[in-house]
């Protein structure tokens, strides 16, 4: 019996290559683990019984369309919806021989930072089931952390890969906007959504990124990678210039334990040979969150308008089409999507567009310019991924603004379309702390190299203590 708890995807690949385990056996072993441990965690919304592929199995966040497998995006409005086509990432995984284990839980339409906004119940953190796994890709993060998947795909709009990776003690990459196809991904905010790998190690992350990244003719916003994905092996950081943006590291609300673990890691960068210096992103941090909460809801209000009960998913009938729309959308959407649809529709309305959406887009340009300026001096920028470790279920559920602040450190670079990697850098009160590495566009290889060297030096044990 394979011990899925500790097995990395790379090790699993080795087992398959050496003939020590087949893809189907691995798939079955993970399904057993899911049966054992997911009752408590609720990381999966559904599993796939048959292994379709001879490689290392994978889990998909439930907004990634996989032909024939129900895809709900964590929403009642899509319950029963079975895609008739594969998303591009799903077909790339299929071509690479990765059998699908199942679809993981998420905040409804990826709107949230705790996975509590799922219409199908919250996911719990494998490190402490009273706490949230983060979100919105909380199901994928929990599944990888608890050994219920060797690797998984999530999606990141404002921090939905990086933040749950941080809270669950795993590695999460938000790639450069445009490097991974969004075709077949249930859209939240099109100009920000990116699919990202969630793994136990940085090398696993690079391996999965290599499978899914690259131009796709079905998504015209994608581009060809300027260089092939390199699987990192160096253990030093010689020649890497590491910038520490003051505002991201001294933001209000960063817990002392988080700050301590991150500072230790910055020190470690120096020890590994990096040139470390301070830098500043004043407006990115001050205005990033506000800017995000105009752009993302505006796009969401349009992207979610297609869920009208006419063609798929939930329908609540009414005496006329207008009432069918209203009843369907009232019953089908939870509070958070409704809140953001209203916010977004308002930001786009005639007379307000320029002050809200238009202004937010201009601020976005400023944020990108500020990052570009910082990258004239530094190769990577570092900070905590999340200001806090995993918080208790229900702690922020009634306070949307407090919840929004969970992403205050991940949002600025997302607004600039930049890649970011979160790696676990230690524990605070027994809970994982994430270290965020931000690079210029298409610098994934450098992020992998830096993340890998740090990962080796930190020696973080990704298996949650209570499961050991």
């Amino acid at each position, binding site marked *: 019996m394979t011990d899925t708890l500790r097995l990395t995807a790379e090790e699993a690949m080795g087992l398959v290559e050496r003939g020590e385990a087949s893809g189907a056996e691995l798939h079955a072993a993970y399904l057993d683990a899911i049966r054992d441990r997911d009752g408590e965690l609720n990381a999966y919304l559904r599993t796939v019984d048959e292994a379709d592929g001879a490689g290392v199995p994978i889990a998909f966040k439930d907004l990634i369309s996989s032909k024939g497998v129900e895809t709900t995006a964590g929403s009642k409005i899509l319950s029963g919806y079975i895609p008739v*086509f594969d998303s591009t990432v799903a077909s790339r995984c299929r071509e690479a021989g990765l059998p699908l284990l199942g679809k993981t839980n998420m905040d409804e339409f990826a709107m949230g930072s705790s996975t509590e906004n799922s219409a199908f119940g919250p996911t719990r953190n494998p490190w402490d089931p009273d706490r949230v796994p983060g979100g919105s890709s909380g199901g994928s993060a929990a599944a990888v952390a608890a050994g219920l998947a060797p690797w998984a795909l999530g999606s990141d709009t404002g921090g939905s890969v990086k933040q749950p990776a941080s809270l669950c003690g795993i590695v999460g990459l938000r790639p450069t906007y445009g490097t991974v196809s969004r*075709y*077949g991904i249930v859209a939240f905010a099109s100009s920000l959504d990116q699919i990202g790998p969630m793994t136990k190690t940085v090398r696993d992350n690079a391996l999965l990124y290599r499978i899914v990244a690259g131009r796709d003719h079905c*998504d015209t916003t994608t581009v060809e990678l300027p260089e092939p994905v390199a699987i990192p092996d160096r253990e030093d950081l010689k020649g890497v210039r590491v910038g520490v943006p003051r505002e991201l590291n001294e933001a209000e609300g960063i817990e002392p334990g988080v700050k301590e673990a991150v500072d230790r890691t910055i020190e470690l960068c120096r020890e590994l040979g990096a040139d470390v210096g301070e830098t500043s992103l004043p407006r990115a941090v001050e205005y990033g969150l506000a800017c995000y909460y105009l752009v993302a809801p505006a796009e969401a209000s*349009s992207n979610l308008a297609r869920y009208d009960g006419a063609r798929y998913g939930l329908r609540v009938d009414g005496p006329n*089409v*207008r009432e069918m729309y209203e009843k369907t959308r009232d019953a089908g959407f939870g509070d958070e999507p409704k809140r953001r649809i209203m916010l977004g529709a308002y930001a786009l309305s005639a007379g307000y*567009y320029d002050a809200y*959406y238009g202004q937010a887009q201009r601020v976005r340009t400023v944020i990108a310019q500020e990052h570009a300026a910082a990258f004239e001096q530094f190769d990577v920028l570092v900070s905590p991924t999340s200001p806090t470790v995993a918080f208790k279920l229900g702690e922020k559920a009634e306070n949307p603004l407090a919840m929004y602040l969970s992403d205050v450190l991940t949002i600025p670079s997302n607004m600039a379309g930049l890649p970011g990697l979160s790696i676990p850098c230690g524990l605070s009160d027994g809970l994982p702390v994430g270290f965020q590495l931000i690079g210029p566009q298409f610098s994934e290889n450098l992020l992998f190299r830096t993340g890998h060297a740090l990962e080796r030096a930190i020696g973080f044990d990704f298996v949650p203590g209570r499961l050991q």
Partner: protein
Amino acid sequence: MNWEPVIGLEIHIHLKTRTKMFCRCEVAYSEPENTRTCPVCLAYPGSLPVPNAKAVEWTIKLGLALDCRIAERAIFHRKNYFYPDNPKAYQISQYDEPLCLDGRLVVPGESDTEVGIVRAHLEEDAAKNVHLGTAEGRISGASATLVDFNRAGTPLVEIVTQPDLRSADEARRFLQLLRQTVVELGISDAEMEKGSLRFDVNVSVRPEGSDELRTRTELKNLNSFAFAARAIEREVERQIGIYESGGEVEQETLHFDPGKESAPPLRSKEEAQDYRYFPEPDLVPIEPPAELVERARSELPEPPGARIHRLAGELDHATAADLVTSGRDSLYERVPGDRRAVANVLMNQFATTGVDPGAVDADELGKLIEARSRIPRDRFLEALGKSGDPSFAADAYLGDGLVADTSELEPIVDRILEANPGQVESYRGGKEGLLGFFVGQVMRETQGKADPKVVNQLLREKLSA
């Protein structure tokens, strides 16, 4: 006071690309419902638009033909609204950065009319709603609505004119010329019956000489150019009537019933809809390469307006415009013979045959038209109907079937003269105009088969004997 109509048009044209605007479904008109659909045009979750490069190129071509400036950077916007024929609940259209801007189309006439083109932009068509439970298929009173998504996503060019038209007839001529321009570019069938050409008309009136713009009304669902011209005329009169009796025209939309021209239009107030336009984040801006624009410019055919001008030199403007906008002018130019006779035959008898002007041997047709007075009407029409056949020869119809044999015609002529002694006497008394009467009688007797030349000759001989 004299009143001047102020008319502007908004025209929608389907491009006849093989596939839809943002997906690879075939563009279809008469296929069974919902058989030309895919995740993109049904707006399934996660589907993304990919623009049709041909449609972009053709819109640029049209823009050039309308003397527009082609934008160096054009943007698709989302136009958000809920309706069953709009599956994404937004239409991908263009807003403040369209592909083609600031053009003009000159409508030739005794004096030319230059009509400004505000813009021409590219968008996708909606699906088709089919309302059940009412005879006319209208929404009011319908028991259910079905949606056919075959049309959803068909590439559509919207052309908006300045309010530069000053009469219903001018509007009709503009539309005919625009339609012909589009057809000759090879980018659209532009057939109203098929729905590949649709237009709305904005109408207002003002005192002649003034340059104010008064409240306009919008006329929708006009299903032919002639109907549109009549509807505009009626609307102009209505508005003048209102002003002359001291009233005010209200801004409203007049929805005509395409099935019943005589039905009075339904009126509706224009609601200020907020479409919440914003740049389509799923698409990158279109930046047409200069080479593409220049190549398209170099491929433009001679514009129909120029040909109208040329032909108006030997005909009149109306006939020249008719020839050009019916696509029969190049045949006209190829057919030898009397210009007006050729034009008349092409615009009348030939037009009813449905023969493809391109397939016609012009010299043979010229011979036929030249001899038309000697050919019975039915035979002439029959000949025109065959004029597109590769084996068509005019000779087969010249004389053939006409009785020119005097031994056959003489007894008939004698019989007619015997039966009409009074007329014979009058003719001989100097009323020579009666010759036509006798010819008519002979033609009737022979069911039009007598050769009129021979009959004339025989009659003259006998009457002067």
